């Protein structure tokens, strides 16, 4: 959000952060802990993908599970039926998601505000129903397990959780770099203008339909990569997990809680929400259904009512106070 370029201090901080993230699985050997780190990185990445469209252009989708699921199914079908590596399947899944985003966007972008949101929910649910109902397409409701090949890095299968950690860390890094570049490009400014007031943006010559289509392409591509990774990580796929509404919810939630339309917002939001969820589970056990989402929804309400800029808003204020500069943007 700083218009004046990164300061030395933030570059040093970033370098330390990268070093810690790379060293983390070498130091922490507990596979329970690494599993939590992987979840945090994965949902940060999904949040980053959502935030490009939902955060900057304020196109508040609650249907990103559609692309997560398409990515997951494309790579799995290619792997099981055609023995094609999920590394290639992952890209193929991203392309399928991009192709799907064109008609879905054509439909949903006809509506604005809450009705856009509802339309995105409906398209994701419709895709789930298609995969549930048409058994010839892909295993129906039972889903399928991914054949375990042991250590097969070329097939995106690893013996240690640490390897999965580095894959998803790479995805998140790529997502953040893409966000960083877009944020500083003309496209970034156009998207923010559309998010602020679409009619005004069009009046000053922003091609809003094209901008929204393009950012939807990028956002759905990235979300699909997460779908492939997740399926490879849990060795299982079915319509209920691949197209789960909770994926769509969490993508939006981590971004809003962390700071909508900011580079680091989804990451900060995921760290808070996933840590809370892990602590709750260790205190209460997983016996009581609904506890996690009850707490998530209370956090979401609190952020909306008292801190609409999210945690990043609070962090930015504190940062600028300590550096002794005025905030570039409140």
């Amino acid at each position: 959000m700083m218009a004046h370029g990164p300061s030395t201090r933030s570059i040093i901080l970033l370098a330390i952060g990268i070093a810690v993230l790379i060293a983390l699985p070498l130091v922490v050997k507990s596979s329970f802990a690494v599993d939590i780190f992987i979840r945090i990185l994965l949902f940060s990445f999904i949040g980053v993908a959502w935030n490009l469209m939902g955060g900057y252009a304020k196109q508040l989708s609650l249907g990103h599970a559609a692309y997560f699921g398409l990515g997951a199914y494309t790579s799995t079908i290619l792997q099981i039926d055609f023995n094609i590596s999920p590394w290639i399947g992952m890209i193929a899944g991203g392309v399928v998601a991009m192709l799907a985003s064109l008609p879905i966007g054509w439909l949903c972008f006809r509506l604005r505000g809450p009705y856009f949101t509802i339309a995105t929910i409906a398209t994701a649910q419709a895709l789930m129903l298609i995969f549930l109902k048409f058994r010839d397409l892909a295993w129906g409701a039972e889903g399928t397990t991914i054949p375990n090949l042991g250590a097969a890095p070329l097939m995106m299968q690893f013996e240690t959780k640490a390897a999965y950690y580095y894959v998803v860390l790479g995805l998140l890094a790529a997502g953040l770099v893409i966000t960083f570049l877009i944020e500083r490009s003309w496209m970034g400014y156009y998207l923010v203008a559309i998010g602020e007031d679409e009619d005004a943006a069009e009046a000053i010559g922003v091609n809003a339909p094209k901008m929204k289509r393009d950012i939807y392409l990028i956002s759905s591509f990235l979300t699909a990569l997460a779908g492939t990774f997740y399926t490879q990580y849990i060795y299982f796929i079915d319509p209920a997990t691949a197209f789960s509404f909770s994926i769509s919810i969490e993508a939006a939630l981590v971004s809003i809680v962390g700071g909508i339309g900011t580079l680091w917002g989804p990451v900060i939001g995921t760290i808070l929400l996933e840590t809370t969820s892990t602590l709750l589970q260790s205190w209460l056990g997983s016996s009581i259904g609904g506890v996690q989402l009850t707490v998530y929804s209370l956090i979401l309400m609190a952020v909306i009512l008292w801190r609409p800029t999210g945690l990043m808003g609070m962090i930015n204020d504190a940062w600028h106070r300590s550096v002794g500069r005025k905030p570039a943007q409140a």
Partner: protein
Amino acid sequence: MWETVAQAVINGLLIGGIYALVSIGVTLIFGVVKIVNFAQGEFVMIGMYISFFLANQFGIDPLLSLVVSMPVLFAAGVLIQHFLIRRVLGPNDMPQIFLTFALSLLLLNLALMLFTANYRTVHTSYSDEALHIGGLYIPVAKLIAFVVAMGLSGALWVFLHTTDLGKAMRAAAQNRDVAMLMGINPNRVFCVALGIALALAGAAGSLLMPFYSAYPFVGQVFVLMAFVAVVLGTLGNVMGALIASLMMGVAESLGIQYVGADSGLIVVFAMLLLTLAFKPTGLGGGRAR
């Protein structure tokens, strides 16, 4: 042949009456307060649980418990408008969408914690009764629900068109700024709109209870149907929502009859997507926001 079609149409109309109560609430809130209430389905769920517990603990008939569920939810609507929604009304969509969405998540998951995911049913003396008219089969519980639902919708129409408060609500829906200049207190009107909308959802819950199971996710079925009906019937239009809801009920029922038992939702989504593709402003014309 015609009997199967007629039977499917009747089944659809009967359940469409319940959809209408939910969609009228959604469209009323949208018309007057200009927000979409994502939690509307959860208030149907709460209405069902109120009726379930009154029936289970005190043996009160679910239809009688309307006199409890409607006032309780009316009060809930006033409080939610006054303490929550009022704070997020502004030009920005994000807080409005995600506040009611968070409310929906909260109520649903609280219900899951308190009542578990078990299905709850109430058996009444008329639950298994049915009228047989010329080969057609009309379940009494659904018929009562339909008649009461239409009665409540009619009462709302009379309220909106004959009382001062009702006219103030319609005025606020048509042009909020001018209505305020005419001396209408917007927050009071919004509180009443939320109250009525939630009371209708509560009524839908109580009316469903003699023939439908209560469980935490039950509202999602109805709210999805309501969103489609509200788009089809033109946003903010009460009569449009009513007619569209009955059409949705019939379409769903015909889908179940001729495509397959689990195809109800597919028909609904297909209708939503077709509406968006060809008539995003709704069947009654008007302007998409």
